[in-house]
């Protein structure tokens, strides 16, 4: 599952939810002004507790679902045990990204890559974006700390880097065009940390 798939699913699911809840409140607003045929109600404490149980299941279930379906959650939680194939040490200073190699840096599909980004002054963000501006991933870059992110690319393309955190007006356009190029070879195995 790539980030594109996840975001597409979110768009569909949330749109359906939004229209459902708007319809429900609309229906409620209409019905509430009408005299009921009977004052006997199905809204008992039992219904209330069932509703609460459903909320708990949704609240917890969403995280269980994403852990099992979104691969980078496991990468994140197991990153101390996963040995990366390549490490990119990146520095940010004076509103500029300093990359370790000349751009575009080529990455092979399926390679486990660790981005270690440090800031020498302010809080920044480190995000990778596709040419159509959709996001591949991002993280915060907190000064005084190593900000490490593990990623495995499954899609071919050239990606640009953008600071995803505001660092003052000077940082409004912190961008490295064509920073990384991912090249896919069909024989590469997938599934980091499994």
């Amino acid at each position, binding site marked *: 599952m790539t980030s594109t798939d996840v975001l597409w699913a979110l768009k569909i699911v949330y749109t359906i939810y939004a229209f459902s809840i708007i319809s429900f409140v609309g229906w409620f607003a209409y019905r509430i002004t009408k005299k009921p045929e009977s004052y006997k109600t199905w809204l008992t404490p039992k219904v209330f507790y069932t509703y609460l149980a459903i909320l708990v299941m949704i609240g917890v279930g969403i995280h269980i679902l994403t852990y099992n379906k*979104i691969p980078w*959650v496991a990468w994140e939680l197991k990153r101390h045990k996963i040995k990366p194939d390549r490490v990119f040490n990146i520095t940010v200073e004076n509103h500029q990204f300093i990359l370790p190699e000349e751009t575009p840096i080529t990455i092979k599909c399926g390679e486990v890559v660790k981005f270690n980004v440090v800031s020498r002054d302010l809080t920044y963000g480190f995000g990778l974006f596709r040419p*159509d*501006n959709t996001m591949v991933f991002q993280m915060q870059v*907190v000064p*005084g700390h190593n900000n*490490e992110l593990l990623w495995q690319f499954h899609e071919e393309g050239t990606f640009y880097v953008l600071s995803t955190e*505001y660092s003052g007006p000077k940082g409004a356009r912190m961008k490295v065009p064509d920073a990384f190029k991912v090249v896919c070879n069909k024989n590469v195995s997938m599934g980091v940390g499994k």
Partner: protein
Amino acid sequence: MNIKELLINGNNGGLDHSGLSPLQKVTLRFVVIGLIFYGVAAIEGMIMRVHEIKPVPLLSDEHFFAIMTAHPIVGIFGSTYLIVFGAFTFLVPYLMKKPVFSIKIANFTWGIMTLGTVLVWLSGFIYHYAPLYTIYWPLPVDFSQFHIAGGIIFVIGVALIMIGTLAFIVNTYATVFYTPKGQKKQPIKPLLMSAFGIDGLLNIINKIRGKEPYAKEPPLSLPIVAIFRGTVDTFLDALVILTAGLLILFFIFNNLFQWGLHYHSVDALLYKNIFWWGLDLIADGLVLIYVAGTWYLLAMLITGRNLFMQNIARAALLLELIVSWAVWSHHLLSDQPQPEIMKLASGEMITAFELITQGLAFFITLTTLWLARPLKMSNELKFLLGGLLGFALAVPAGIIQADLGMNRLLHNTQWVAGAHFHVAILVGLTMTLYSAIYILLPILTNNSVKLFSQRLANWHFWLHLIGGIGMGAFMGMAGIDGMLRRHVYTEGEFMLYMIPAGICGAMLLAAWVIFMFNIIATIGIKGLIGIFKPSKIDKEVIVPQPATAMQKG
């Protein structure tokens, strides 16, 4: 009557301010100033919406981000805080049937908060001071980008707002606990048990054990419990923000007098944790708890019934106390040095409880209304339903982004700003406040005014609802497609979403203009000015007697 006369004198003679008690007047002052600041925030928002469609040549990056810094402070502290504080300054004595502890403190509160908000706005307007509301360390003390004077004015402004907040809290607690002259002294313990919702929890436990309820008639009504509970979080939040302000001030002097302390001596991650712990108490303490309390109050006033599952609601407010103190880490899910256990426990799992506490308030309020059918679709009811819908949309959007997997793609995007907090604040919170304004207007004006136009009230409702949801939806969709929330796009990258978002933003602004016109036409400018004149009625009076009688009638 022509429009000029109408606006000056109001509908049917407008507001008779001479009959208003000091408490009514001070409450209306809070609300009037809060509504004006809402308009300022809406205009600022609209400028930013236009800039996101196509950068405005006259607006430099410095000015754009200065607006972005002032916008939430004017909107939250200048508008929402003032309206909420005004409403609660009135409701606590009104519901407890005893005078407010101090009218002077109440007047001090709105005055100092207004001054503070104006100062913050000026720090952006004059000096383009723009660390944004998150003031991530060490950005607020980066004087290679910002003018020191801007920083000083900003910090003083925020400090004044927080001092006003503390004054409101003192007044609220004092009103709850003090005994007015001639009344029987109430013991503190049951009041405290009730204020924290502990009596509700004990009632449930006793019911399970087959025992008599701990408190058949709790000493504090449920809305008071919610106000008290929310105020605990507001207090802690004010302390944290004040401390952050002192730190910034210290480094300003450090810079001015060359004390030689490097800003890296403050750990940026620790600072971020403490700051978010405090700031999130606004979202969870103020917004969720105050709103839940207001929903309960509105539902009870609209239906004239007790609340469905009242003990659960009381106990849930106690649960929210624990939840709201432990959820801040959902703001740091994309901070890689943040310990994973904090991300999982605080950021994901405890945060998920907000779905439960808010979902519970949603269910209880709707059921209370449902059981009282048929109800007249009054302004207060329709705005209350709008507010409920706003949170039903915004809270799940927040829960989605408070997930390790989703946050990797949604953090700092327009999804957070649009689908989550703008829908929560503009639709959820603001519509709830409009509902409260409509229901309190007759009580606060001694029934002396008649709404100028119901048609305009309907226009206000629909434009606000559609504009608020629409803007949030289009911003949210842009966020899903990768649009960041604190970035200037110059090449029309997200034009497809930003144009409809801008149209919806214009609807919101138009809704406010219509509402203000309708209210001014109702009250009259003379009446509005009269609100700011001293009252001749005794300060012990909550609502003058004839109005109370009329209200009951």
